[in-house]
């Protein structure tokens, strides 16, 4: 098996897929949005509770491949407790990492677990899997649309 493939499915991703963090419904959320990838059936609902520009809580429900679920889980742990501006910054970093615009080393300090997703850039077909939860979160905060589709 190629190293790139092992890099894609590294331990942290498989572990978050098996035991996703913040996997629950949130009744007192301030923002909620459904994200869907109709081509492969990935489907998540992202819940956010924002108070005074701080993301006090974030959770998600839904199903999809290991990459998409681990990404949603890592996204939730990354932005929880952060300001809206910081969440936006992480969104930008994540996007650059999975599309290969920047490598993980450039964001070594800042990226944390997000860096695990830099392996996705080797597999263009999987970028939409990794991005779904992030785009949904971003659009929920921007009140962009009722639904997000990465197709």
């Amino acid at each position: 098996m190629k190293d790139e493939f092992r890099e894609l499915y590294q331990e942290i991703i498989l572990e978050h897929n098996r035991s996703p963090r913040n996997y629950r419904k949130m009744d007192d959320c301030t923002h909620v949005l459904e994200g869907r990838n109709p081509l492969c059936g990935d489907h998540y609902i992202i819940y956010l509770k924002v108070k005074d520009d701080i993301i006090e809580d974030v959770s998600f429900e839904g199903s999809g491949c290991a990459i998409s679920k681990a990404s949603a889980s890592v996204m939730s742990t990354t932005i929880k407790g952060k300001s809206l501006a910081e969440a936006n910054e992480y969104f930008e970093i994540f996007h650059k990492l999975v599309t290969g615009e920047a490598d993980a080393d450039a964001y070594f300090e800042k990226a944390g677990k997000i860096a695990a997703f830099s392996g996705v850039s080797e597999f263009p077909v999987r970028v939409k899997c990794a991005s779904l939860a992030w785009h949904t979160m971003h659009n929920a905060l921007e009140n962009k649309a009722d639904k997000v589709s990465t197709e």
Partner: protein
Amino acid sequence: MEALQSEKINIKTTLDPYKYRPDFPILSQKVHDNTLVYFDNAATTQKPIQVIESINQYYRISNANVHRAIHLLGERATNGYEEARVRAARFINAESERQIVFTRGTTESINLVANSWGRKFLEPGDEIILTEMEHHSNLIPWQLLTHQMGAKLRFIPFKADGTLDFPVFEQILSNKTKLVAVIHMSNVFGTINPIKRIIRMAHDRGVPVLLDAAQSVPHLPIDVQNLDCDFLAFSGHKMLGPTGIGALYAKVRLLENMDPYQGGGEMISSVWLENATWNEIPHKFEAGTPNIAGAFGFKAAMDYLDNIGMQKITLYEQAITTYALDKMMEIDGMIIYGSAPERGGAISFNLGNIHPHDLAHYLDQQGIAVRAGHHCAQTVMRKLNIAATTRASFYFYNTFEEVDYFVEQLKSAVAFFNF
């Protein structure tokens, strides 16, 4: 095990895939450093050199428009195109080539019937019966039509084993029913539906039957006269032919009474500024310059299949499918969807809690091409309460050794994802 081995040998004496594989240049390549194992034949099949060459030769020596030119090339193109029609008629044992309309494929064939037959003959309150296991190609055209016409769709449910619920069919078949349109072989379960029984029941009430034969014509001997179906739709690319060519078979009386599908050149007889008269069937339904090269390739594909023999292909595929099912079911956590006794070589499954998308990506790394997703049958997935499955589907060029390798890689995928 000994019994299995001898069975393997027996099958090999009837059809030896290794005899045909050299005809398929694509199969000998490496994918991610592994020899390609192509198990996505329900999506599309690979093309033998005979088909590739026929298209090549057409463009090299015969290219011209059909049914128009006086010159030699035009004659060659027209003859080849019409020979393909005769060939298609013979392939499914139609009485006449006038019953074969060339289309882009199964989807267009069904849309043609929905538009040309449906819009003319359907009335508000009428009903069309489908099954719950239809591919989107035999669902959406009827949704569009019934919404437009104020008509209604009814559905024959499928049971847990992937077979149809006949008592429900008996209940919903009524004097409101104007058409029964069913998938012959399920692209999800592999189920071969008992269509003779369906046709008999529908005909008892004078209701015509359309068969979505995209998965059956490539794998089973089909005799439309024996089946007595009224419409039959199939695609070239799922039976060794090129993409963008397929056919609609229909009974002459139906074709003659139907309105044209699209307007343009070729489908007319006489044209005035305000109106026109239509060409004879089947040309009435073929507006514009058709896929001539596709027809040449399609003909070569049918020649290839008949040279082997469809009966032989069916038997071999049944043997390799049974072999694969037995081996797959030995793997812990294997769920296979559909266990109809009459089935073809499409196997949908899930393995433990590995998502089909992850599994298909893993297998691709090992050189194995399978399909992951909803297989254009979202309603089927919803009823099974799953988002997706992985599907392996075979053709006569697949080998028992490939199945062994596939099963081995499924086991290693379990180890990989559960580390």
